[in-house]
């Protein structure tokens, strides 16, 4: 009997060892690019946990690898912890949105000029966190509220002000954090007044367009570069009282990393320069609508710009 136990243990140990070997083997394989140069510096790349951020995180990682860096990917982090991970040094950079930096991280008042917002966040980030904002993208992935076109027409809702008036007839599909985040519903309430929705339910962010499509809700939170918005079925409400600042994309990177390896700036900026709204929506759509893997889509796009 004792023999049998040790047999079981042995089996577990062996299988564990095998797993370890394979896992480490695989990750190191994918990390080392085909043209590793003399500098074997490892950069830890992060991203948030939604499609666009994943694609961008992967895209920047590919650019660094192409330039001969080793990249350790820590993609798919929760939006709420990614900033702290960066400060802690768990990651070295991640793609962030200027508006999010302004409202959520710095908790400043909203501003509406892209340049102004960028200047403010980059100055304050450097001073407060020793973090550097690289060049921002042309793409602007603002927050928004999206409705099914039919419902919007039915209640004649075009702007968020209209929505506020008809809120009691509207079913809202939230994803939890929007109700709590300072640049989410609380910000809207401050500017537009309270929203007494007929119904409010939480759904995973990934299924919100399905929920709208299946008429389980009328209204959802949107990001303006989402692939689904390319469809005619949905309409984004106009933020007529300007709650939301512009949300341009830029990698935020730790100061010491940039100082040690200044050329990283150019490598990443070159990628950001290619990102306009059309491109980002197209990339998102490849993943969310055509159901391809984000790393594949990123690689494909990178091959066209390198």
């Amino acid at each position, binding site marked *: 009997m004792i023999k049998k136990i040790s047999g079981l243990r042995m089996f577990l140990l062996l299988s564990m060892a095998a797993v370890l070997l394979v896992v480490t083997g695989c990750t190191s394989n994918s990390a080392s690019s085909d043209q590793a140069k003399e500098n074997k510096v490892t950069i830890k790349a992060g991203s948030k946990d939604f499609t666009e951020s994943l694609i961008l995180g992967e895209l920047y990682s590919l650019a660094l690898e192409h330039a001969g860096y080793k990249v350790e990917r820590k993609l798919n982090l929760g*939006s709420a912890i990614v900033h702290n991970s960066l400060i802690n040094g768990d990651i070295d950079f991640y793609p962030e949105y200027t508006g999010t930096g302004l409202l959520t991280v710095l908790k400043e008042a909203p501003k509406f000029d892209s340049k102004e917002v960028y200047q403010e966040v980059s100055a304050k980030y450097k001073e407060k966190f020793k973090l550097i904002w690289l060049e921002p993208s042309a793409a602007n992935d603002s927050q928004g509220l999206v409705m099914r076109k039919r419902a919007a027409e039915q209640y004649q809702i075009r702007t968020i002000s209209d929505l506020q008036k008809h809120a009691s007839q509207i079913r809202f599909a939230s994803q*939890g954090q929007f109700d709590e*985040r300072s640049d989410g519903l609380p910000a809207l309430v401050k500017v537009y007044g309270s929203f007494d929705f007929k119904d409010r*339910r*939480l759904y*995973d962010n990934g299924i919100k367009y399905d*929920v709208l499509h299946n008429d*389980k809700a009328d209204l959802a939170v949107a990001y303006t570069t989402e692939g689904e918005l390319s469809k005619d079925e949905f309409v984004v409400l106009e933020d007529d009282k300007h709650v939301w600042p512009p949300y341009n994309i830029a990698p935020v990177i730790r100061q010491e990393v940039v100082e040690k390896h200044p050329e990283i700036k150019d490598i990443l900026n070159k990628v950001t320069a290619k990102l306009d709204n059309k491109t980002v929506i197209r990339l998102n759509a490849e993943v969310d609508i055509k159901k391809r893997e984000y790393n594949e889509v990123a690689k494909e796009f990178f091959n066209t710009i390198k």
Partner: protein
Amino acid sequence: MINESIAYLLLNIDKYYEAVMVHIEISLAALAVSFMIAVPLGIWCSKNGSVSYSVINAFTILRIIPSLAVLVIAMPILGTGFVPALFALTLLAIPPILINTYSGFRNIDPFVLECAAGMGMNAGKILLAIEIPLAMPLILTGLRTSATEVIASATLASYIGAGGLGDFIFTGIGMNDVRILLIGGMSVALLSVLTEVSLTAVQHMVTKYQRD
């Protein structure tokens, strides 16, 4: 931290109340439906030796499927909200009740049944007056196991819009806000413990005859 949690709770007491109600509602519904399916099925299995093996095996395999997977996979078919969550949770709750009903009936001393039949009871009377009361303690144990699992797993239903206390956990994770998480997590644990305690009390009452 606890104070902050309580402050948040008081601020959102309406939402909390609704979430608790929805959580209880969905758990109770799942338990009720699975009880109504599993008990008759278990009885039937205990009397039909040949099928019992395959039925019980099938449900044991179903039980192996992670609850998250059941939930996510039910969604494209059954849509979002209450129905798929109920479906997933019911599937999760059936096996313990089924298996315990089965063994509860199987464990009854055949002499007792022989006596009852000898006294002139018909099959229906034996079932109601003898078999069900004797199997009840084990059936309730199964119900207890199911209840714990259902109450804990009902939090996952938040992902597909079924509401409940999972909303707090879900939001708490998204926000990385421990206050909100604490409210959700602790409430579910409390709910589960309360259920356990009350079902144990019921079980105690039902098994009175076993003590002196």
